[in-house]
């Protein structure tokens, strides 16, 4: 973990509470999520079900509901809630002085 190549992507307050923003990369979008407690998580912005943009879903607790077919994914692990099975890649994040940093190597 210490070798993480952190990239600053913006301020915590740029992301709405219980919401998400998209970080565009050369390998597709990453959704950066903010919970009610200001925790920040990052998932590949593609639902394991049918590729729905998770960043557009409703965030609740540490989960997000995909806007296309209501799969629920855990923001920490990217795992789909049972009984659905699948996983969206998750990315390391950290917050320092209100700034959000993202690692581009999936967990």
């Amino acid at each position, binding site marked *: 973990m210490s070798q993480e190549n952190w*990239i600053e*992507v*913006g301020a915590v307050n*740029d*992301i*709405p*509470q*219980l*919401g998400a*923003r*998209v*970080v*565009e*990369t*050369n*390998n597709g*979008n990453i959704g*950066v999520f903010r919970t*009610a407690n200001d925790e920040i998580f990052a998932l590949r912005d593609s639902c394991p079900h*049918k*590729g*729905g*943009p998770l960043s*557009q*879903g*409703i*965030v*609740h*607790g540490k989960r997000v*509901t995909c*806007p*296309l077919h*209501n799969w*629920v994914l855990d923001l920490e692990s990217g795992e789909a809630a049972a*009984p*659905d099975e699948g996983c969206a890649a998750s990315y390391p994040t950290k917050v320092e002085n209100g700034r959000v940093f*993202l690692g*581009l190597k999936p967990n």
Partner: protein
Amino acid sequence: MKEKLVLIGNGMAGVRALEELLEIAPDKYEITVFGAEPYGNYNRILLSPVLAGEKTVDDIMLNDDQWYLDHGITLHKGKEIVDIDRRGRTVFTSDGTTAEYDRLLLATGSNPFIIPVPGNDLDGVISFRDIQDVDVMLAASKQYKNAVVIGGGLLGLEAANGLMLQGMHVTVVHIQNTLMERQLDSEAGSMLRTSLEERGLNFLMEASTAEILGDKHVTGIKFADGSEIAADLVVMAVGIKPNIALAQKVGIHCERGVVVNDTMQTYDPRVYAVGECVQHRGQAYGLVAPLFEQAKVCANHLAHMGYSRYEGSITSTKLKVTGIDLFSAGDFVGDETTENIIMKDVARGVYKKIVIKDNRIQGSVMYGDTVDGAWYFQLLRDNTDISDIRDHLMFGQAHLGDSGHGGQNAAAAMSNEMEVCGCNGVCKGDIVTAITKKGLFTLDDVRSHTKASSSCGSCTGLVEQILASTLGGDYSAAPHSKPLCKCTEFSHDEVQAAIKENKLTSIRKIMDYLKWKSPDGCAACRPALNYYALAYFPGEAEDDPQSRFINERAHANIQKDGTYSVVPRIWGGVTNPSELRAIADVAEKYNVPTVKMTGGQRIDLLGVKKEQLTPMWADLNSAGFVSGHAYGKALRTVKTCVGSEWCRFGTQDSTGLGIRLEEITWGSWMPHKYKIAVSGCPRNCAEATIKDFGVVCVDSGYELHVGGNGGIKVRVTDLLCKVATEEEVIEYSCAFAQLYREQAHYLERTAPWIERVGLSYVKENIVDNAANRTLLHERFLESQKYVQKDPWAERASEGVQKHEFESLTRVG
């Protein structure tokens, strides 16, 4: 230190209570379970299919040893508790094992009733209760020929059917003259008997067993009239009685069963009881659905939450004999104060009877076609006034509107390969496998595991029927009052009332007041709460964009590839060359891949990337367009025909009226999408009679129609009334919309709402009560003051919700 909980009885009711408890208070107790049988918890109601050779014992296991390990539960299999020291709070098994408890849960189940006749203890005389009985029956079927089942009730017939399928010659002996007389009237009973006889079962009716013959092993049965028949195996299935021996021995108050109050507590406050051993309000239950309701209540109290109450259950019955559809619930016999609606078609093998008293369903019995059983049961439990739907009642829910989704209506007649859910491509076999392999009991379980009935919902009745025929009467029908979502125990009605009465103007206030179980709700409840607060307190409640579905947050319709569609408002569907030219320019400028006419007479620009939305809206705004709200739970469109301005048949200015209606109602949020149409004459070219609010112009004025929709299940509107002037049309239209906005559940369209509350209720509030109509109209106009701002303009030029339309950054 954790408190200690001991469960006596490792069966479905007790273990279900543990599961419910672990869900709400996983770390509260150190749990020990004692079970007399040498197995984990299995699905007792699926013993019949095991006997019939349709399933194996492994198929019906609900909780294997690993489950107990995973939850840190100590399981003692094959150990029967023989004594309890209530003062010292310790239980004892026959082999000297002991366990202490802070709380004790009794779930000792029931014992089969053995008729007191000579010979009832001979070899080959058994009951039908557990895996061991099934093993004995399966072994006997390989060795012997003649089986007699005493008891023509549910369990007896299932046992008889199973033994017959194992190759035995089976005779059912029944003391009454009607099979399953507790569940069926004589008509249905005789149809059932005919059908079972055709399959090869034999019946001796009104036969009273006097003696079971044989030296060591049973050889036959002698009846009270002196006649005899040969038998190598006798199965007694004449009923069950609560197993209260242990409770009685240790002095816990019992009558027919262990007596409990509404919190499932016995007379010893440290001891709770659930399941078939229990007597609650004088009633003992032998079906799974009530036991699961008890388990949920019990868990609530074991977890010290202490607010849930069990108030008894109304049960329904289904027979688990493959290929026979049969349903009954409530009082299906009736008396001189009740009325019956009966349909009988012997050639088709269909019989249905509904017993009604004071326009409410008291009970129902159905044979052959049971697809509407769940619906009648719902109407029965909700005590719904059926006077508005009485003339359609017998023909089922699908016939309430004009036509149904052209699906099957007899689950038993379907093969496993036939498709049940057309949205998700789920076949009958998939559902049956999921129910049995994964131990599912409710519609919600089936929805989450198979996706059947989880999209459009038109196959819900069929899925319930498959559940019921797979599980028998034991499946858990949707509870009487369904919680809004998993975050609360309260129903939509209860939540709506609390918001109105206590003036809860934000999601946070609602969740705090109603003690929401999750910190910030879920994707199901937050949009509902946001809607309720906005609808009841316009101008005061604050909209929470993060609690809106993406379409309403982005003011565009998300598509399968993550792009959006844009539909500008075209008032009444009337446009002109310059507007069309502006739309064409926008489509070209932004390389819109698809331009399409919508069903509501608007133009849809499909395949727009999210970052293109705001500049596109700015261009559309400058050409005079505003949002068409094609994406919202909102007023969508007012569809019109050309009317008297051009049409040689037109009686009124339908386009002009449509434009006026759209100008007044646009921007209003609704519980679900809401469509209006105005037709200029009874030819009805605007299809006004399948809209939420439809106007059909006639020479003498305007017919107002409500509660229609196209879509999954076409429903033709009900006629609300006829009015003379355009002003009245507008007043009634606003009043109706407002009544719907204030009273329907979120995501309930006008059609099911009207079916729920009844057309009479809507008429009383709008047609008969002019003062109320005026108030509703005023409240609608008041709430419109706050919403008739174009959301596209706010976002395109005022920077509202800017973050919604821009990526955070681009890296790499």
